């Protein structure tokens, strides 16, 4: 599977996230000869356990995350970042959890946006929106380098691409920038060959950063 980096938008101090940034990013992709390919979407859920006694169990993890990825429609991925766990499951697990009433989703988020092809690179830019709401919580960007699937070998290529992207975006004088997170896939038991689990882990970390730094906006 091609190597993918997940970046998120970090607004400058005091400024907010808006759809304008999404449009600017889309135009930027086109300015470096990107070809629009269509839309993409994914969903993310934070789960909390449903227990008979509602007392707080301190040892149960609070960051239990489930994510569906656009590339893998038949799978669902669970990540517990604090314990460095990532698991792949069938997409029907969501139905099972609902029927068993074992876990309940406390926060649901949608990712949706556009996809661009830039030669051997594939770019996806999308907004993060809570379900049943129009306000944007953040913006994510996926960069994929299609020819190779080794995380190490692709590192330099991805770094330079992100630099080129930053350069192109800086011409638009937006109040913020896309940030890449430094990851250690080894901690999660993942190897050099890229897999959807790697994407899941990146999203979990991106979400943690986003929640910590971004303030919600009423009108996107």
């Amino acid at each position, binding site marked *: 599977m091609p190597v993918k980096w997940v970046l998120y938008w970090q607004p400058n101090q005091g400024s907010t996230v808006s759809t304008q940034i999404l449009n600017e990013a889309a135009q930027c992709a086109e300015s470096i*000869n990107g070809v629009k390919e269509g839309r993409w979407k994914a969903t993310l859920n934070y789960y909390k356990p449903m227990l008979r006694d509602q007392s707080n169990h301190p040892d149960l993890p609070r960051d239990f995350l489930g994510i569906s990825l656009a590339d893998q429609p038949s799978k669902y991925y669970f990540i517990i970042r604090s314990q460095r766990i990532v698991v792949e499951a069938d997409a029907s697990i969501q139905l099972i959890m609902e029927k068993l009433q074992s876990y309940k989703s406390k926060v649901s988020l949608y990712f949706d946006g556009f996809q661009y092809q830039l*030669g051997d690179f594939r770019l996806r830019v999308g907004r993060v929106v809570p379900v049943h709401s129009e306000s944007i919580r953040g913006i994510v960007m996926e960069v994929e380098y299609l*020819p*190779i*699937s080794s995380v190490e*070998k692709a590192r330099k*290529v991805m770094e*330079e*691409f992100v630099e*080129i992207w930053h350069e192109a975006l800086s011409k638009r004088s937006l109040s913020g920038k896309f940030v890449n997170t430094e990851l250690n896939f080894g901690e999660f038991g993942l190897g050099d060959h890229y897999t959807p689990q790697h994407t899941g882990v990146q999203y979990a970390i991106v979400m943690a950063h986003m929640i910590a730094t971004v303030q919600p906006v009423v009108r996107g």
Partner: protein
Amino acid sequence: MQSLQQLQLLQNPTEAANSQSELEAPPKQVAQAMERLNQAARVIADIRLGADRVFEALFLTSHPRTSTTDTSLQLLLKEDASMRQHLHDLRSIGKKLEESGVLTESLRSRSNSWGLHMPLVCPDGAVVAYAWKRQLAGQAGASAVDRTRLALKAFTDQKRRFFPHIDDGVKMESRSKKHRASHSVLEHGGGEPFDCKTLPDIQSRLEKLVPNVKVSTYGRLSWLKRANSLPGSGSDDDPPEASKLVFQSSSKLRSGLEAEVADKVAVIELYVPSVFRAVVSLNPAGSVDPDSVAFFSPDEGGSYLHSRGFSAHHVYKHITEHASTVLQYFLGFGTGTALYSLLLWICSFESLFSKPCSKCGRLLAMDKKSALILPPLHRAYQELPLAANLDVCEAYHGGCSPDDS
């Protein structure tokens, strides 16, 4: 609209002439009609002149001082005769034109025999039978020039791509002479005896020089099996399943051919894990003469993975194109060292995703021609095969390469 008429003309030549010359090609009919119209124009001019003379004669008769009535009468009679002749000529030409379908009433309303709407007088005053003829003639002339220009451009482009060393006459000659001399030195062994004429020798030499590259040899059939059994990009499901199917189908072919081709190596695969897979084919099988090479992603698999195939990814596609040029260069020496040089050069791509361009210092750059962001796809090849290691193979982007004019 005029091009539509031209099309109709080409498609309906037979409708034009109903009485004679049905089988004549449209150009001949056009020529005939042009001729007749010219004749008609001359006759009309004659009639005009004749009319002038008649007026002159009448003028003379009204002025008896300048001439006698006799001469004017003669004049009038003469003019009358010639006028009648002219008008008769005009009538016959007109009839001929009508017969050939040029002058018909229906022509004005709807495209008929030749589908021509003909303004006889062009905006600049020139009298032309068919307005589109001028356009056609102009177009024919212009397109001939354009076609020649395009052909010349295509030829020089291809020459530059595949035989760049031919361009630079003086400079390359001296360099190639030096290389020819050094290649023969290689054959007879300078420091250590090295014969790059046999495959095992080449293989062992490469293993020493570039240990990260896996060099494997195959017969043609076994390469096909291997190509089909490689996991295709993105899907890791059941490669053993795929290879089982291929074994079943090819076992039928085996019986007769296997005995012949069993020992003949026809395909060499160079695999650098996670970077690239290159396929070189030898022609004839069992020799050390390469005839084509192609690069692929290490994750690609399928029957299109052969030395004349193309990768699904732009970076490997571009390298493959560059590789054909380099192969021609090595073959051009004719010293039998082409295979070794080529394989050595291919191994220099181990650094494809890590070695920045020697000119601009960056790994990625926007390639102007293809409008794609690519790593350096060119590797210097003129110093091979004498290089002690592959560091002399400098990396360049397509646009930064000194070879590019």
